[in-house]
Protein backbone atom coordinates (compact mmCIF):
# COMPACT_ATOMS: atom_id res chain seq x y z
CA UNK A 1 0.00 0.00 0.00
CA UNK A 2 1.23 3.48 -0.79
CA UNK A 3 1.50 5.63 2.35
CA UNK A 4 1.56 9.42 1.93
CA UNK A 5 2.54 12.08 4.46
CA UNK A 6 1.61 15.75 4.05
CA UNK A 7 2.60 19.02 5.72
CA UNK A 8 4.24 18.47 9.11
CA UNK A 9 3.68 14.71 8.92
CA UNK A 10 6.20 14.69 6.10
CA UNK A 11 8.58 16.97 8.03
CA UNK A 12 8.45 14.84 11.18
CA UNK A 13 8.61 11.46 9.51
CA UNK A 14 11.15 12.67 6.96
CA UNK A 15 9.38 11.00 4.05
CA UNK A 16 6.74 12.16 1.54
CA UNK A 17 5.70 8.62 0.74
CA UNK A 18 6.64 5.01 1.27
CA UNK A 19 5.37 1.57 0.33
CA UNK A 20 4.23 -0.64 3.21
CA UNK A 21 2.89 -4.17 2.84
CA UNK A 22 -0.19 -4.91 4.91
CA UNK A 23 -1.11 -8.37 6.04
CA UNK A 24 -3.43 -9.74 3.39
CA UNK A 25 -6.51 -10.07 5.59
CA UNK A 26 -7.35 -6.36 5.31
CA UNK A 27 -9.05 -6.34 8.68
CA UNK A 28 -6.74 -3.73 10.17
CA UNK A 29 -8.26 -0.38 11.14
CA UNK A 30 -6.54 2.93 10.50
CA UNK A 31 -5.83 3.09 14.23
CA UNK A 32 -4.14 -0.34 14.16
CA UNK A 33 -2.02 0.74 11.21
CA UNK A 34 -0.95 3.93 13.00
CA UNK A 35 0.14 1.72 15.91
CA UNK A 36 2.39 -0.21 13.51
CA UNK A 37 3.79 3.05 12.11
CA UNK A 38 4.57 4.45 15.56
CA UNK A 39 6.65 1.32 16.26
CA UNK A 40 8.87 2.24 13.32
CA UNK A 41 10.73 5.05 15.06
CA UNK A 42 10.79 8.39 16.78
CA UNK A 43 9.74 10.54 13.81
CA UNK A 44 6.56 8.49 13.54
CA UNK A 45 5.80 8.64 17.24
CA UNK A 46 6.22 12.43 17.24
CA UNK A 47 4.01 12.75 14.15
CA UNK A 48 1.23 10.66 15.71
CA UNK A 49 1.57 12.05 19.24
CA UNK A 50 -1.67 14.08 19.19
CA UNK A 51 -4.24 11.84 17.54
CA UNK A 52 -6.84 14.65 17.56
CA UNK A 53 -5.05 16.33 14.66
CA UNK A 54 -4.32 13.15 12.68
CA UNK A 55 -6.48 13.16 9.58
CA UNK A 56 -6.58 10.21 7.23
CA UNK A 57 -7.73 9.50 3.70
CA UNK A 58 -8.11 6.06 2.16
CA UNK A 59 -7.92 6.24 -1.63
CA UNK A 60 -8.48 10.03 -1.39
CA UNK A 61 -11.59 9.72 0.77
CA UNK A 62 -11.47 11.10 4.33
CA UNK A 63 -12.19 8.42 6.94
CA UNK A 64 -12.05 8.19 10.73
CA UNK A 65 -9.53 6.20 12.73
CA UNK A 66 -11.86 3.23 13.18
CA UNK A 67 -12.32 2.59 9.49
CA UNK A 68 -11.06 -0.72 8.15
CA UNK A 69 -8.28 -0.29 5.63
CA UNK A 70 -9.65 -3.14 3.56
CA UNK A 71 -8.27 -3.19 0.04
CA UNK A 72 -7.27 0.49 -0.14
CA UNK A 73 -4.25 1.04 -2.33
CA UNK A 74 -3.34 4.43 -0.85
CA UNK A 75 -3.47 5.88 2.66
CA UNK A 76 -2.60 9.49 3.44
CA UNK A 77 -1.90 11.23 6.76
CA UNK A 78 -2.19 14.98 7.18
CA UNK A 79 -3.14 17.75 9.65
CA UNK A 80 -6.36 19.80 9.36
CA UNK A 81 -6.66 21.66 6.07
CA UNK A 82 -5.59 25.30 5.90
CA UNK A 83 -6.05 26.23 2.24
CA UNK A 84 -8.22 28.90 0.69
Amino acid at each position, binding site marked *: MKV*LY*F*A*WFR*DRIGLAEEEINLDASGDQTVRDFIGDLVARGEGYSIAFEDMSVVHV*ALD*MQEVDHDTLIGSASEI*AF*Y*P*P*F*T*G*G
Partner: protein
Amino acid sequence: MVRVQTEDFDPGGELEALIAGRTDVGASVSFVGHMRARNEDRDVETMTLEHYPGMAEKVLGELEAEAHRRWPLQASTIIHRVGPLKPGDRIVLVITASAHRQAAFEAAEFLMDWLKTKAPFWKKESGPTGDSWVSSRSADENAAQRWTASPKSK
Protein backbone atom coordinates in the same frame (compact mmCIF):
# COMPACT_ATOMS: atom_id res chain seq x y z
CA MET B 1 -14.68 24.19 -13.63
CA VAL B 2 -11.96 23.32 -11.14
CA ARG B 3 -8.20 23.86 -11.44
CA VAL B 4 -5.18 23.50 -9.17
CA GLN B 5 -2.12 25.29 -10.54
CA THR B 6 1.15 26.97 -9.63
CA GLU B 7 0.59 29.85 -12.09
CA ASP B 8 -1.29 33.01 -11.26
CA PHE B 9 -4.83 33.47 -12.58
CA ASP B 10 -6.67 36.47 -14.02
CA PRO B 11 -9.97 37.06 -12.15
CA GLY B 12 -11.49 39.26 -14.87
CA GLY B 13 -10.42 36.93 -17.65
CA GLU B 14 -11.83 33.90 -15.82
CA LEU B 15 -15.17 35.67 -15.31
CA GLU B 16 -15.27 36.61 -18.97
CA ALA B 17 -14.43 33.04 -20.04
CA LEU B 18 -17.10 31.67 -17.72
CA ILE B 19 -20.07 33.71 -18.94
CA ALA B 20 -19.10 35.10 -22.34
CA GLY B 21 -22.02 34.98 -24.75
CA ARG B 22 -24.54 34.07 -22.07
CA THR B 23 -27.62 36.22 -21.59
CA ASP B 24 -29.23 34.27 -18.76
CA VAL B 25 -26.72 35.26 -16.07
CA GLY B 26 -27.93 38.17 -13.95
CA ALA B 27 -25.35 38.11 -11.19
CA SER B 28 -21.79 36.96 -10.72
CA VAL B 29 -19.74 36.92 -7.54
CA SER B 30 -15.96 36.59 -7.78
CA PHE B 31 -14.06 35.91 -4.59
CA VAL B 32 -10.28 36.25 -4.57
CA GLY B 33 -8.11 35.24 -1.63
CA HIS B 34 -4.92 37.30 -1.46
CA MET B 35 -1.76 36.69 0.49
CA ARG B 36 -1.18 39.14 3.34
CA ALA B 37 2.24 40.26 4.57
CA ARG B 38 1.11 39.82 8.16
CA ASN B 39 -0.92 36.99 9.62
CA GLU B 40 -1.87 36.82 13.28
CA ASP B 41 0.82 39.34 14.21
CA ARG B 42 3.61 37.58 12.33
CA ASP B 43 5.43 38.93 9.29
CA VAL B 44 5.24 36.51 6.39
CA GLU B 45 7.75 36.68 3.54
CA THR B 46 6.75 33.52 1.67
CA MET B 47 3.75 31.30 1.95
CA THR B 48 4.04 27.84 0.45
CA LEU B 49 0.85 26.01 -0.44
CA GLU B 50 1.00 22.25 -0.45
CA HIS B 51 -1.79 20.02 -1.72
CA TYR B 52 -2.68 16.36 -2.11
CA PRO B 53 -2.58 15.94 -5.89
CA GLY B 54 -5.61 14.08 -7.14
CA MET B 55 -7.59 14.41 -3.94
CA ALA B 56 -7.51 18.24 -4.11
CA GLU B 57 -9.08 18.27 -7.58
CA LYS B 58 -11.54 15.54 -6.57
CA VAL B 59 -12.74 17.41 -3.47
CA LEU B 60 -13.01 20.76 -5.27
CA GLY B 61 -15.11 19.05 -7.94
CA GLU B 62 -17.37 17.56 -5.24
CA LEU B 63 -17.75 20.95 -3.55
CA GLU B 64 -18.65 22.56 -6.85
CA ALA B 65 -21.23 19.85 -7.56
CA GLU B 66 -22.70 20.33 -4.08
CA ALA B 67 -23.03 24.08 -4.65
CA HIS B 68 -24.88 23.39 -7.90
CA ARG B 69 -27.22 21.02 -6.05
CA ARG B 70 -27.98 23.60 -3.39
CA TRP B 71 -28.36 26.75 -5.52
CA PRO B 72 -29.58 27.44 -9.06
CA LEU B 73 -26.12 28.26 -10.43
CA GLN B 74 -25.55 28.62 -14.13
CA ALA B 75 -21.76 28.39 -14.00
CA SER B 76 -18.86 28.38 -11.57
CA THR B 77 -15.08 28.40 -11.40
CA ILE B 78 -12.74 27.30 -8.63
CA ILE B 79 -9.00 27.84 -9.00
CA HIS B 80 -6.52 27.18 -6.21
CA ARG B 81 -2.84 27.92 -6.50
CA VAL B 82 -0.08 25.83 -4.98
CA GLY B 83 3.63 26.39 -4.46
CA PRO B 84 5.45 29.43 -3.08
CA LEU B 85 3.59 32.77 -2.94
CA LYS B 86 4.60 36.30 -1.97
CA PRO B 87 2.60 38.99 -0.14
CA GLY B 88 -0.04 40.46 -2.45
CA ASP B 89 -0.22 37.30 -4.60
CA ARG B 90 -3.59 35.78 -5.44
CA ILE B 91 -4.21 32.40 -3.77
CA VAL B 92 -7.70 31.24 -4.66
CA LEU B 93 -10.55 32.24 -6.98
CA VAL B 94 -14.20 31.27 -6.70
CA ILE B 95 -16.72 32.56 -9.23
CA THR B 96 -20.44 31.83 -9.11
CA ALA B 97 -23.01 32.93 -11.71
CA SER B 98 -26.77 32.84 -11.33
CA ALA B 99 -29.91 34.57 -12.52
CA HIS B 100 -30.23 36.42 -9.21
CA ARG B 101 -27.68 37.74 -6.77
CA GLN B 102 -28.64 35.93 -3.59
CA ALA B 103 -27.83 32.48 -4.97
CA ALA B 104 -24.52 33.74 -6.37
CA PHE B 105 -23.51 35.33 -3.04
CA GLU B 106 -24.54 32.37 -0.91
CA ALA B 107 -22.93 29.78 -3.17
CA ALA B 108 -19.62 31.70 -3.26
CA GLU B 109 -19.57 31.96 0.55
CA PHE B 110 -20.45 28.30 0.86
CA LEU B 111 -17.68 27.27 -1.52
CA MET B 112 -15.06 29.30 0.34
CA ASP B 113 -16.21 28.03 3.74
CA TRP B 114 -16.16 24.40 2.69
CA LEU B 115 -12.99 24.72 0.62
CA LYS B 116 -11.16 26.00 3.71
CA THR B 117 -12.21 23.03 5.83
CA LYS B 118 -12.67 20.17 3.35
CA ALA B 119 -10.10 20.53 0.57
CA PRO B 120 -6.60 19.09 1.09
CA PHE B 121 -4.39 22.19 1.04
CA TRP B 122 -1.89 23.25 3.69
CA LYS B 123 -0.13 26.56 4.15
CA LYS B 124 3.40 26.99 5.45
CA GLU B 125 4.52 30.50 6.34
CA SER B 126 8.15 31.59 6.18
CA GLY B 127 9.27 34.80 7.82
CA PRO B 128 12.05 36.35 9.89
CA THR B 129 11.28 33.96 12.73
CA GLY B 130 11.48 30.82 10.58
CA ASP B 131 9.02 28.42 8.97
CA SER B 132 5.77 27.21 10.43
CA TRP B 133 2.71 25.35 9.28
CA VAL B 134 -0.45 27.43 9.62
CA SER B 135 -2.94 26.16 12.21
CA SER B 136 -6.56 25.67 11.28
CA ARG B 137 -8.84 28.44 12.56
CA SER B 138 -11.91 27.73 14.67
CA ALA B 139 -13.56 30.66 12.85
CA ASP B 140 -13.27 28.66 9.63
CA GLU B 141 -14.77 25.58 11.30
CA ASN B 142 -17.67 27.66 12.56
CA ALA B 143 -18.21 29.23 9.14
CA ALA B 144 -18.33 25.79 7.54
CA GLN B 145 -20.87 24.59 10.11
CA ARG B 146 -23.36 27.20 8.89
CA TRP B 147 -23.95 25.17 5.75
CA THR B 148 -24.78 21.80 7.29
CA ALA B 149 -28.47 22.78 7.29
CA SER B 150 -30.34 23.44 4.07
CA PRO B 151 -29.56 26.65 2.16
CA LYS B 152 -31.36 29.90 2.92
CA SER B 153 -32.59 30.38 -0.65
CA LYS B 154 -33.15 28.06 -3.59
